């Protein structure tokens, strides 16, 4: 087990603050977007791109590397913000989000922005694609991992459970699913729409190695990602349940369903930036 130095955790936390600020400025500039689910997966993205993959300019062009699919494509502003944070795209480009002709589509599009691993937005599809990548990694015997970031509303979808069944039955140990369990989906709280908790026993019954943790605690997220990216879980696919808060980092957004899809006004941007940057 790799134990990450406290200094590295503090660096990642600073990264997460800048990513949150980018999310707010992007959605403010675009006039629409999904701030709630973008803010909840910030630590996951920072841990994957900055810590695990050590991504930067040129990283994506390599053949041999990890693969990350943001299956919950509506959190695109968080993905673009992370790309800018690690130097994969210019920071100035963030202001083009959702504009006509922009590479930063409302939901990620790999044909316009090649740094996007997979075009997503129709929920439920990304885990299967990550599974295909994991199968290819195993076929080539490559020492990398295929990560899919899922939403807890997204796993309502039957296709997710098709992928869970296949990966568990076939012991696809290069596959890591990370659930951004913020407890809220479009129409309301998970329990008001489709309650699927508890997750862990279901996933374990399907043959997955499962770990639960505080998805807003950077040290815990990094530790979980390191565990999933090691031989420790054995020959099983890995499922990380990150308990998160929708709209995390900004008090007036936190844990509120109406911030799933919402614009960020100039006043809200100012207040939000003060909170996230401290």
């Amino acid at each position, binding site marked *: 087990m790799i134990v990450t130095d406290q200094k590295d955790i503090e660096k990642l936390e600073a990264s997460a603050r800048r990513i949150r600020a980018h999310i707010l400025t992007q959605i403010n500039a675009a006039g629409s977007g999904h701030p709630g689910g973008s803010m909840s997966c910030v630590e996951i993205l920072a841990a994957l791109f900055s810590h695990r993959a050590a991504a930067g300019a040129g990283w994506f062009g390599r053949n041999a590397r990890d*693969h990350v699919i943001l299956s919950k494509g509506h959190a695109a502003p968080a993905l673009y913000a992370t790309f800018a944070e690690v130097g994969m795209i210019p920071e100035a480009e963030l202001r083009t989000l959702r504009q006509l002709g922009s590479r930063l589509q409302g939901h990620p*599009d*790999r*044909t316009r922005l090649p740094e996007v*691993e*997979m*075009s*997503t*937005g*129709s929920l*439920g*599809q*990304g*885990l*299967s*694609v*990550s*599974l*295909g*990548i*994991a*199968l*290819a*990694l195993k*076929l*080539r015997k490559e020492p990398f991992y*295929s990560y899919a970031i899922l939403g807890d509303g997204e796993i309502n979808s*039957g*296709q997710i459970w*098709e*992928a869970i*069944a*296949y990966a568990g039955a076939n012991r696809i140990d290069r596959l890591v699913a990370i659930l951004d369990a913020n407890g809220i989906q479009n129409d309301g709280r998970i329990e008001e729409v489709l309650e699927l908790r508890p997750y862990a026993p279901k996933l374990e019954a399907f043959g997955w190695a499962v770990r639960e943790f505080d998805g807003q605690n950077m040290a815990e997220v990094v530790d979980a990602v390191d565990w999933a990216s090691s031989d420790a879980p054995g020959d099983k696919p890995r499922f990380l349940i990150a308990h998160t808060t929708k709209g995390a980092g900004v008090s007036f957004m936190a844990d509120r369903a109406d911030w799933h899809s919402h614009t960020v006004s100039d006043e809200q941007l100012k207040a939000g930036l003060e909170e996230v940057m401290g």
Partner: protein
Amino acid sequence: MAATPTNVPEGYVSLRDVFGDAIMALGARDPRIVMLDADLASSTRTMKFKKTYPDRHYNFGIAEQNMVGAAAGFAISGYIPFVNTFASFLTRRACDQIAISVAYPKLNVKFFGFHGGINLGEDGATQQAVEDLAIMQGIPGIRCYAPIDGNDLARVMNEVADVEGPTYVRLSRFPSPLLTPKVASADERAAACRLLTEGGDLLVFTTSTLAAKVIEAAAALKAEGIGIRVLGITRLKPLGEEIAAEAEEFAGKSIAVVEEHSIHGGLADGLSALLDGAGISHRIERIGVPDRFGESGHPDALLEAFGLAGAPLRERLKAAARG
């Protein structure tokens, strides 16, 4: 499984057997090719491939959406996945995955829809596909093929393995007569348009193995003094530009499309759009499946009942020739 006799008449070839042989040759030539199945591997003739290349065959179970998504992952990783199941299940169950996980990101995935049309017969409407080509043609960027015989499929296999991007090939269930010459080389591609019979009274465009039934009808009508020019169309999307010229030569005379598919979204619609775009005025007699599902029955009886073979087809063509 259909109870139809499987004795293959002389000169008849089953498209799926040609497919089974073609994937062996392609698989040997290109190690990037992987086979994906959804619990119908015995029907899709991939068992031999699985035996020879066990690492390159994946059975996803009855989970077509996951299979299509995994195919996208293979394509991202530089492999060339062949996705195989019934046309009905592929296009109806995994439509959104085909559109968003494959076509939208322009991934190099090869779809094969087995038992397209109604000729599967006895199994009935749930396993038949009268709308597969409408679905696949409606999704941006997918090249669509409906080979007219085994030799034609062999050419299509060469073509789809070489072109970059998503493709869809519709296959038929039962052995059908060989109408086109044997494939000369692995470089040979499907013709945009193939003359099957000559005649001056009616121009008929047809596609898939139903072409054999159209040729039968044309031969019978020739004896009655009605000449029918039959053109076989293998690639429905994009349609070859030369097809418009063929129709233009027939200006002022009658044109019909005969297809084992819904009259909505199939060859007739594609041809109509091509001719509209070329500024060629036309009236197309649409001989296909009206707005309805298929049903159970012996394949030949079913095709006749739907007016796509035998005497009913002859009568419809005769009426069309009269204008």
